[in-house]
C-alpha cells in the first residue's frame, strides 16, 4: 500500500488533456467542441488535485473548485451562444461560422 506516484497522476491528467485537445481540433460539431473543452478543464483540475495530494495540502482542491466555477460560467455562456448560432445559421457546424462580420 504505497502512495500513488506524482508522475502517474500527472500522466493521466496529460492524457485526458490531450484527448480533449484532439477533440477540439478534430470535431466540427460545436457542442462536441464545448464538451472537449470541458474535458480539458477537468484534466487541468485533476492535475491540481494530484499536485495538492502529493504535498498533502488543500490548495490543489481549492484551485479545483475555482476551475469548476469557471467551467460552469463558461458553459452557460457558451451554450447560450450555441443556441444563438443555431438560430442564425441553422447548423452546428463550426466551419459555417468562420467569418466575422462588423
Amino acid at each position, binding site marked *: 500500500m504505497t502512495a500513488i506516484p506524482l508522475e502517474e497522476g500527472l500522466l493521466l491528467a496529460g492524457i485526458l488533456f490531450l484527448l480533449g485537445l484532439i477533440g477540439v481540433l478534430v470535431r466540427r460539431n460545436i457542442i462536441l467542441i464545448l*464538451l472537449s473543452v*470541458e474535458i480539458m478543464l477537468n484534466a487541468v483540475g485533476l492535475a491540481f488535485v494530484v499536485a495538492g*495530494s502529493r504535498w498533502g495540502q488543500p490548495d490543489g482542491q481549492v484551485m479545483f473548485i475555482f476551475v469548476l466555477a469557471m467551467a460552469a460560467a463558461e458553459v452557460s455562456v457558451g451554450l447560450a451562444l450555441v443556441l444563438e448560432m443555431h438560430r442564425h445559421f441553422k447548423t452546428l457546424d463550426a466551419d459555417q461560422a468562420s467569418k466575422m462580420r462588423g
Partner: protein
Amino acid sequence: MNVLFYLSAAVAIAATALTITRTVAVHALLYLVVSLLAVALVFYALGAPFVAALEVIIYAGAIMVLFLFVIMLLNLGPQPGGEAAAAGAWLAPRAWLGPAILAAVLLVELVYTLARGAGGIAGGQMIEPAQVGMALFGPYLLGVELASLLLLAGLVGAHHLGSQREAERAETQANLSPNPSPTKGGEPSSSPFPRREGGQGVRSERLL
C-alpha cells in the same frame, strides 16, 4: 489504494477516447458522464473525497444536464420514423451497452472499496473537507469572491443572450401581422405571458 487508481484511470481514458469519437451527441455525453465519474473515483483514490463529491454533483450532474438540455432544445439528429423509431433507437444495445459496461466496472470498484473500508487511501494522506473549507475561506477568500463575480457575469451573459432572442421573436411577430393595433396586446390569445408586454415595450422603443 493503487488498484482503484489504475482501474479508474483506465476507465477514464477509455471513456474520454470514446467521447471524442462519437457521432451522436447524446452518446458522447453518456460516455463523458462515465469519464467524469471515473475521474471522481480517481480523486477519491488520491485522498480528496470533497472534490470527488463536487465532481459528481457539479460536473456529472449540473453541467452535463445543461448540455443535455441544449441538445434536446436543438432537437438534433435524424428522426425519420417519428417517435416510435426514435424510441427504438434509444433502446438499441449499441447506444447504451458501452457506457453501461464502463459504469459497471466503476460500480464494482466502488463496492469493493466501501466493503474494504476507507482506511488505507493512498498511503493515508487524506485531505479532509474541513481543511479545504478552512483554506477556501481563509487565504483564498478573495478568490471565492472573484469566482462569485464570474458566476454572476455568466448568469447575466446567458440571460442577455436569451432575452435578446425573445425580443427579436416578438419583433418578427409584430412584422408578420400587417397592422399591429395597440389593443391587440391586451387580448389573451396573442399575449399568453405577461413577459410579452416587455417585448412590446422594446418594439415600440425601436419604432421610435
